[in-house]
């Protein structure tokens, strides 16, 4: 459970809404909030980054930890589906770099200011974002089959 005084401080400073694992923060104050968490509150360890698809929006969640007080805090931001863009926190926590690439790859959420926003798990030329609910499990791979070399070409 996240520390109540940190949650209260985030509520007053950034008008955050608490939930079971941490807080939900308005997208505009994400960068300032994670900087404050790292520098003022001692949440210097990056745990994970994940995305979830809702009905009209994506949720991007980062988890950070204060190793001294052994407290893990989840910071959630809601990103609208019609403009899926959010600030990158890769310059605050180096560990967010790959996790944000993964969210971009699997959900198609763009991270502004990310140093190297490329696909990470799927091939570079892959069409679509597989963890979206609209992406069916049976979606064909869309790859060209490698052509077997003909004897003429091989000789």
């Amino acid at each position: 459970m996240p520390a109540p005084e940190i949650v209260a401080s985030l509520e007053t400073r950034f008008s955050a809404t608490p939930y079971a694992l941490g807080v939900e923060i308005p997208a505009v104050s994400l960068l300032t909030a994670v900087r404050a968490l790292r520098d003022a509150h001692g949440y210097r360890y990056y745990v994970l980054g994940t995305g979830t698809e809702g009905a009209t929006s994506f949720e991007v969640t980062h988890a950070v930890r204060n190793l001294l007080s052994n407290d893990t805090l989840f910071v959630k931001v809601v990103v609208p589906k019609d403009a899926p863009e959010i600030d990158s926190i890769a310059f605050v926590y180096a560990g967010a770099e790959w996790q944000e690439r993964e969210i971009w790859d699997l959900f198609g959420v763009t991270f502004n200011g990310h140093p190297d926003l490329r696909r990470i798990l799927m091939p570079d030329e892959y069409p679509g974002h597989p963890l979206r609910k609209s992406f069916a499990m049976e979606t064909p791979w869309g790859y060209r089959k490698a052509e077997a070399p003909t004897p003429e070409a091989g000789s």
Partner: protein
Amino acid sequence: MGLPQGGGTYARGRIVSGGPIEVVERDFGELALNMGPQHPSTHGVLRLILHLSGETVIKAIPVIGYLHRGVEKLSEHLAYDQLAPIYERDDYLAPTANSNAYVLAVEKLGGIAVPRRAQWLRAFVSEWQRVSSHLVWLGTLGLDLGGALGGGTTLYMYCFREREKILDFLEELTGTRYHTNFNLVGGARYDLDAAMVAKSNALAASVEAALPEFWSMSGGNPIFVERTRNVGVISKDLAMGVGITGPTLRASGIAYDVRTAAPYDAYGELPFTVITRTAGDAESRFQVRMDEIAVSLKLVRTIVEGLPTGPIFTRKPLKNPKATKLPKGEAYAAVESPRGELGFHIVSDGSAKPYRLKINAPSFKNLQIVPHILPGGLVADVVAILGSLDPVLGDVDR
């Protein structure tokens, strides 16, 4: 690959008449070298693009995803009781750690009680798999460092000899050598009897007896020390920012272990020491894992001594695996796998399947340190550093 424009890639010796040999160092610019995905020292299908200046790495770009199987997407299409065996295929060197983290997250979200004996048995199997996983790591590290260790194969064979005994033991306990399918939501699947307890103790004694031998072949070998000391140093700040985890984190002087920081299963009741080193180099990571083998062997003895009596599974038997529905909400639970914090973040919408499931994989986080620590080192250090990080590509790519 052709030579770069303007000459060879090595310094040339030229004899000037009457004088000493003059060595001319020439700058041949940057060379991009592709390492992997099919390379014996990348422990699977990791690909590294190394930018080299001479033999020094100036930039390293890891390319992953060759083993991506879409486990998180698959999770959204299966019921909670069907999923645990799937995750055992993720980190294939310590399968039960994966299913253990998963069942913990489901139990947390659903408020499902676990009998005490089952909690102890989960810890028991986890510790045996930690030993077996660390033995694979040590053996393959020996192969990576190659010639220094009698061709490398000696240490590898010795480690696999002991690991084989552990797999045989697990086969006798669970019917499977590897993917034991030990953890169930709400308990454990297999029980220990007195004969198996005796076998576990004998096995622990056998592996313990082999440890000094392993030490003398690795940590006691001056060439091994030369190849690992002050190589791939990870500072505390970098370790925290990148969020590396497990023995890799503890070798940088941060005593964070999920087993003590957020005790799960039986670990709240089990006394053990968290191993740390402060140097943060490849040798410290090696030492941490070696000491952890000894700690785990002590732990399995403690567990069989104090094993509580009682049932191992108390939930009502299921007629239909799709009958288990979890309340709406979110939960995160983690275990200390041999590679570090392995967590499951489950979002439930109240149905019988996870709405979204994220696997917080330790190898993924540990591999992220690679572009930060490889530059400045030599090509030969790359394999030593990768070996000391112990990535499992099934865990990285999921």
